[in-house]
């Protein structure tokens, strides 16, 4: 197991009380596996990613749990050890390729800087390795692109550069936080293919954060569904998408725009997610759930296997 998160809870201090952004989440990622994390805005996907990288803001505190990376808990590491992990072991790709690159440094120099750090090469060789890495993310004229500044590149090109930077070490785990949301559909597809290919060739695991269940269906072997800082369902992608158990997952799938009929209105889930400062005692989804029982208001359902004999599909719901 490459990454094993257990009972992780994160809170943010704020004027109006603590925001409980993550509540006892547990999941794991195997070597070479692509795992999707889906959930609506504010469900804690980015917080999960930043916690793994040790990059939470100063007002955050980790109130419980452990994050084992290759068997070592990153939460008890000192700053230096966490620093050594970033880039080298765990890379990250962000949603906004337009602003993720140093605005006044040439692409080739940015790559050389990161490569020098991880592979201890002299500048010239690091620069050449950078050009090679641009070719590996399918940039056609890598020498030319290396001499350009970020503002001279399109969004898709920049995202390729960011991927090249994140994969420079190369890391064993890549966290991709909505890497294609800001891109055109055709470019989106190319970037997804590229990431799939890099994962397959190098055995890199990818934690793939997205809003888009279509992307999950295409890329991910397993999927984790988050709601209001909790995992409500997880399992093999085909099981979860074809036989969703949790009402929230079902609503998400129902909310998928039907590609065959683009005129059909997007089915939004009515209601709002709960205030993370005052988490409900019972099920977090109860306020929006059509199937809610009286029990749901009082007692929190645990993440349990959906069927006794099936240990790969879990859901947190009293009704099943």
């Amino acid at each position, binding site marked *: 197991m490459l990454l094993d998160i257990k009972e992780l809870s994160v809170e943010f201090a704020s004027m109006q009380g603590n925001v409980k952004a993550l509540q006892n989440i547990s999941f794991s990622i195997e070597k070479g596996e692509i795992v999707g994390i889906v959930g609506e805005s504010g469900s804690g996907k980015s917080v999960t990613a930043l916690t793994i990288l040790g990059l939470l803001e100063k007002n955050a505190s980790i109130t419980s749990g452990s994050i084992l990376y290759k068997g070592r808990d990153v939460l008890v590491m000192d700053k230096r050890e966490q620093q050594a992990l970033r880039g080298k072991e765990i890379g990250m790709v*962000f949603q906004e390729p337009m602003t993720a690159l*140093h*605005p006044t440094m040439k692409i080739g120099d940015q790559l050389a*800087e*990161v490569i020098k*750090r991880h592979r201890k090469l002299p500048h010239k060789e690091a620069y050449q390795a950078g050009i090679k890495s641009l070719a590996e993310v399918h940039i056609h004229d890598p020498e030319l692109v290396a001499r350009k500044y970020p503002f001279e590149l399109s969004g898709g090109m920049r995202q390729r550069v960011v991927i090249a*930077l*994140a994969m420079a070490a190369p890391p064993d785990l890549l966290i991709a936080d909505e890497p294609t949301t800001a891109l055109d559909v055709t470019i989106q597809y190319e970037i997804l293919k590229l990431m799939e290919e890099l994962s397959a060739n190098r055995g890199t695991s990818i934690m793939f954060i997205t809003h888009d269940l279509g992307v999950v269906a295409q890329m991910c072997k397993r999927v984790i569904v988050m709601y209001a800082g909790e995992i409500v369902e997880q399992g093999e992608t085909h099981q979860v998408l074809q036989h969703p158990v949790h009402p929230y997952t079902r609503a998400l799938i129902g909310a998928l725009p039907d590609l065959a009929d683009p005129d059909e209105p997007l089915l939004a889930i009515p209601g709002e997610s709960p205030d993370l400062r005052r988490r409900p005692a019972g099920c977090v989804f109860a306020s929006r759930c059509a199937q809610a029982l009286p029990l749901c208001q009082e007692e929190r359902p645990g993440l349990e296997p959906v069927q006794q004999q099936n240990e790969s599909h879990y859901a947190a719901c009293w009704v099943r």
Partner: protein
Amino acid sequence: MSAEVHTSTVTRTVNPFWYTCRKNPLMLAGIVVLVIILLLSLFAPLISSYEPTKINIKDRFAPPSAEHWFGTDEVGRDIFTRILYGARLSLGVGVAVVLGAGLIGTVIGSISGYFGGRIDQIIMRLMDMILAFPSLVLAMAVAATLGPNLQNAMLAIAIIKIPVYVRLARAETLSLREKLYVKAAVTFGIKPWRIITRHIIPNAISPVIIQVTLDIGDAILLVATLGFLGLGAQPPTPEWGAMISVGWKHLLDYWWYPTFPGFALFLASCAFNLIGDGVRDILDPKANR
């Protein structure tokens, strides 16, 4: 309005320096004055046949004439010559002090802003302490404590100038630190020191440059002020402030003695202030518009 927008799009390919000078004649004037002063001081040995520190008692207090354009002082030295050589000192010291303070202040400020927490608290309280004193009083105190000479005067002026740069760089760093490209650099594994020097400072530098150009005129005045008070350059060094200091006692009898160095000081600090304003307009078009 629309005509102006039009011209600005057309002239975008024109050299931005000349474009700005045309739009900002005061800055151009400042540059011209400065260049003249620089050339004069650089070629002082060619322009004047006198030596700046050579005493010639029989020519003392000679009024301005064809021989001594700005007259002579109490030991017969040519004031024009001393002003030319003094320019090297005043301008050189002014520029050096401000550049030094700018560099040190920027590094301290970006460290303070990037790491935050305790380091930040300590640094900023120290800067507040420096800023709490009127700057001239503090400079005088430092220079007097360390001993009256030019190096100590420079150090004193640098110390009072540093906090401004610390604050500027810190404020800029606080906003840059939140920029995605800085966070991304952290995830790529780049070390904090490199992030500060390669990713933050180069992008935090333009307000610092503006402040540097605005401060040079002030620093020249401060150097002269300390010289005037006897806390800076010591005689017979041809320093403007020191010349005025001795000369003003003779103002009523020999008006030229303090007047010309004073005028040189005025011209030089004006030139730098005009240039500073111009640089601010170029680098920060939002201000003052």
